[in-house]
Each structure stands twice: as C-alpha cells, then as structure tokens.
C-alpha cells in the first residue's frame, strides 16, 4: 500500500548537501521531507571525510609509536607497538554513529520528516520512497532537491568485490593486508595509501599521470612526493592497470607498454567518483546535463522549474563543504530570499602527510586567467613552531595581483595546515590585500606566522628569511 504525503520541499539524499538543505529549510519554516536510502550523513559521514580522517589519525598515532620504538630524537622509547585494526574500526564506527545520530537529531529539531528509503522520481513534483519496512510513500512537492551525491568509479578490468577495494572497503578493512596496491594518486588514494603505509602495510601506488596529486601544481606536491618516498611508499607513475589475478596481483603497463605484475593481497581502486544520476528515475526528468553531472546555474537550479540540485551530483569540486553551502543557498531561496552560490573561493584540503590546502587561485591559474600577479612562499623550515612540532617540511604560498595587492589565492603544504584554511578562506572572501595580512599581528609561536611572512615576502618585507 502506498501512503501519499504532500510537502513544500522534498530532498533526495541525506548527505551533507541534502541534510544541511533540509535543516536550514526546517529552520526557515518550510515543510520539508528528506529521503535517504542508506544512512543519514551520506558519503561524508559514513564512508568519506569523517571515517577517512579517523583512520588517518589512528595510522598517524601508530606510526609515531613505531617511530618511538625505533628511537626518537625526543628521547622517548617504547617497545613492541601493535595495532588491533578491528578495534580501530570499532572506534571509527563509534564516531560515525555519533555523528549520523546527531544529524538525525538536528533534522528532528528542525521539524524535517525523514523517510528512510530509496526515492524513485516520477516527475518534477513527485517521487515514491520505498521504505525500509516494505511500505512506500508517494511524496508530492513544490520543490524537488536532488542531493544524491556520487559513487566510486569502478575499473572494468577490476570490479569492486573481494580483494578489490573501493574507498568504502578500505575504511572498514577486514584485515591489514601485507601488501596493498593503490590505483590512483588523487587525494583519496594518497590519503588512504599513506594511512595504510603508516599502519605497517607495504604500499605501492600506480598512477596514470606523471605526478602524484596531478590536479595540484608541482611545487605544492613536491613535499608530498618527498614524504611518500621517505615513508617507503613505492610509486609507479605514468602507468596504467590492466587487470588483476590472485596469483600475480595487479597487472601494470608502463609508458613503454612493458607489462609487469605487482603482487598484492588487496587493491584499492581510487580512480575518481561519478555523480549518482542513474537508477532512481532521474532520466525521466530529461534535465540538462553537463557531462556526467546535472547542470545547474548560479542559483543551483536545474533546467526544470522547481527542481534544484546540489553537491556531488552537480560535479566538481566534489567536496562536502561545497555541498553544504549549496544546500543552505537553496533552502533560503525556497524561503523566498534572494541568494546565489557564488563564493570567491572553495577550499580544498588533502589530508595527506604533509597536508595540502588550496584556496583560491594558484600562480599558474592566475596567470592563465591573464592576471599580472606576484607570488611568494615562506617555508616552515624557518618557522619556530614547526620546529618544536618536528614538522618543518612544506610552506605557505600567497598569490596576489601586482597592481593593488589583492590576494587571489593561498596554498600551503605541511603538517596540520588544514587549520590554516579558515584564515585563507576568510581573507579571500573579505577582499584582503597583502598589507592586510602582513600587518596583522599573528600569534607567536604558531605555524600561522608563516601566513603573515608569506604576505610580507610578497611585499619584499619578509623578516624571518
């Protein structure tokens, strides 16, 4: 039997895009229904940002213990470091449960009706949700918001399953393999590959491009490359994978078309993510697409009136904080406010070791856009706080217009630089100039002093280099 309900807003997908849209809509008094087929929190809280950072943290702690066992410069010694990976996974699952439970509470508090089940779209104003109990609910709405996210891309020669892991499997490992091959040196492959290396696994990364993190510039990824080599991660760059068999492992082909095999108990395929657009009747709406993703305008509107889309289903950059900001933007528009999704900058962070942060334009991008700009970097090797944290690798770099010193971009690579993203984002959104940052007193001793020094250096006034 199918129940029928009517609402103003139906959100399909309870990831960071969908749940934030629903919470904000609820706060604004909009009758809202949210359908989620898997688990509230979406990719981000269940199998993405959060669990990956939990595993990365555990791996870092373990690596430190192993480092101390080998004799640390600090004079600390431990013996016999061990990790019970099943316990690590339980700890990670506990965090996921707390956060997804929290999202449920927030939705309830905002008055959102949550339907746990998969939604099938009938038309731009109707979808049926197959509830987990077996019943289904037909939802009629004025506004339909697509927030169905994305899913990992499979390699035809190595479909997911068994020893062939997606990122999801790598976040809930059944065992710690002796040898892991990671296919893809983008941020997901590297974040997890480095974590497994720190957990004591022999890790080999195969990447088609000539560089790791190929979407970032080379100066920025150089410290990551050095760290990978120091950590003992084996790299095969400019190589493609041709298949897998249990006996020989992963078949790899290099640029000269030589083929060789990389033995491995597990293979993590991390070659990208694809917008989730199939299997739930989306095609029936015949929306304009942009490549594989749903096309949207500056208001997050699709080509059909009353149908909105946000987050990974709308393409790059596929990042949780973009999805959330778009979700807020759509909810406020449905509440009648005039909004556009036009941030000056969307930060991107790789939680590799060292971490990488990019906010706004890189020197190359700025020049490609025809801007006359200056850039300058300040190395953490000259930063006192970094020394006391044993983390002197990397730097902060700033890009600014030459004429008026308006800051166009920040990039940083180094230990813990993810937390500098707040300052980077704010300064760009505020329209800060080099002088604004260079003449702001930054606390001593912090890694953030490198931010000020980079700005001063671009002005030719650096003090500590």
């Amino acid at each position, binding site marked *: 039997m199918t129940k029928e309900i009517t609402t103003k807003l139906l959100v399909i997908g309870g990831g960071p895009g969908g749940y934030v849209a629903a919470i904000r809509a609820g706060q604004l008094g909009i009758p809202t229904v949210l359908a989620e087929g898997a688990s509230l929190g979406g990719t981000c809280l269940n199998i993405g940002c959060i669990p990956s950072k939990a595993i990365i943290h555990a791996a870092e702690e373990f690596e430190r213990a192993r480092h101390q066992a080998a004799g640390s410069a600090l004079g600390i010694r431990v013996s016999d470091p061990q990790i019970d990976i099943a316990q690590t996974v339980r700890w990670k699952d506990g965090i996921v449960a707390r956060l997804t439970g929290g999202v449920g509470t927030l939705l309830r508090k905002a008055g959102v009706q949550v339907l746990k089940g998969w939604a099938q779209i009938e038309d731009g104003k109707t979808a049926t949700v197959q509830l987990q109990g077996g019943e289904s609910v037909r939802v009629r709405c004025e506004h339909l918001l697509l927030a169905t996210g994305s899913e990992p891309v499979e390699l035809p020669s190595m479909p997911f399953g068994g020893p062939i892991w997606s990122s999801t499997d790598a976040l809930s490992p059944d065992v710690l393999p002796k040898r892991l091959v990671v296919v893809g040196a983008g941020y997901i492959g590297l974040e997890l590959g480095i974590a497994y290396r720190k957990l004591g696994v022999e890790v080999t990364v195969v990447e088609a491009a000539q560089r790791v993190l190929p979407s970032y510039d080379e100066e920025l990824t150089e410290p990551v490359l050095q760290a990978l080599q120091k950590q003992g991660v084996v790299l095969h760059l400019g190589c493609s994978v041709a298949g897998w068999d249990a006996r020989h492992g992963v078949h790899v082909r290099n640029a000269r078309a030589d083929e060789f095999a990389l033995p491995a108990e597990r293979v993590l395929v991390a070659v990208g993510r694809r917008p989730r657009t199939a299997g739930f009747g989306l095609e029936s709406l015949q929306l304009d697409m942009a490549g594989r993703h749903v096309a949207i305008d500056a208001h997050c509107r699709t080509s059909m009136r009353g149908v909105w889309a946000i987050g990974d289903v709308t393409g790059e950059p596929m990042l949780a904080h973009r999805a959330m900001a778009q979700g807020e933007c759509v909810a406020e528009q449905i509440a009648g*406010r*005039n*909004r*556009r999704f*036009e941030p*000056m900058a969307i930060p991107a962070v790789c939680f590799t070791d060292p971490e990488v942060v990019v906010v706004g334009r890189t020197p190359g991008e700025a020049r490609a856009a025809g801007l006359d700009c200056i850039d300058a970097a300040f190395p953490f090797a000259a930063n006192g706080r970094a020394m006391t944290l044993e983390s002197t690798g990397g730097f902060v770099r700033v890009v600014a*217009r030459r004429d*008026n*010193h*308006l800051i166009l971009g920040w990039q940083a690579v180094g230990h813990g630089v993810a937390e500098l993203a707040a300052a980077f984002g704010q300064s760009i*959104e*505020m*329209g800060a*100039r080099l002088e*604004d940052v260079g003449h702001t007193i930054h606390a001593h001793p912090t890694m953030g002093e490198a931010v000020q020094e980079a700005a001063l250096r671009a002005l030719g006034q650096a003090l500590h280099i």
Partner: protein
Amino acid sequence: APRAPAAVRKEGERPLASPAVRRRALDLGVDLRRVHGSGPAGRIEHHDLDAWAAGGGQAQAGGG
C-alpha cells in the same frame, strides 16, 4: 550629495565585496556590479552600499 562614479571594472570581473556586503546587496536587490567601491582595491564597503541604496534605488531598478 554627488554620487560616486560607477565602478570601473573589466568585463567579467567580479565586484569586490565581503560576504556580508554581498549578502546585504542580495537582500536589498542591489546589483553590486553597479556600485562604486571606495575601499582598498576598489572594494565595496557597507557605506558604499548604503549610499547606493539611499540615493540610487530608482536608477538601479530602472537601469536593470
């Protein structure tokens, strides 16, 4: 009071304004591309928006 001249910005160049100014402009229905920025680097400040809204709502709506 004499109105500040319209902002001179290159084609396709976004007006420079902080998130709070941008948000207020949206709420007031003001197109920031038409507002003069008196701040450093031509940044549109709150008082630029106030001046425009106080004196130029008409022209703004008419000018589209």
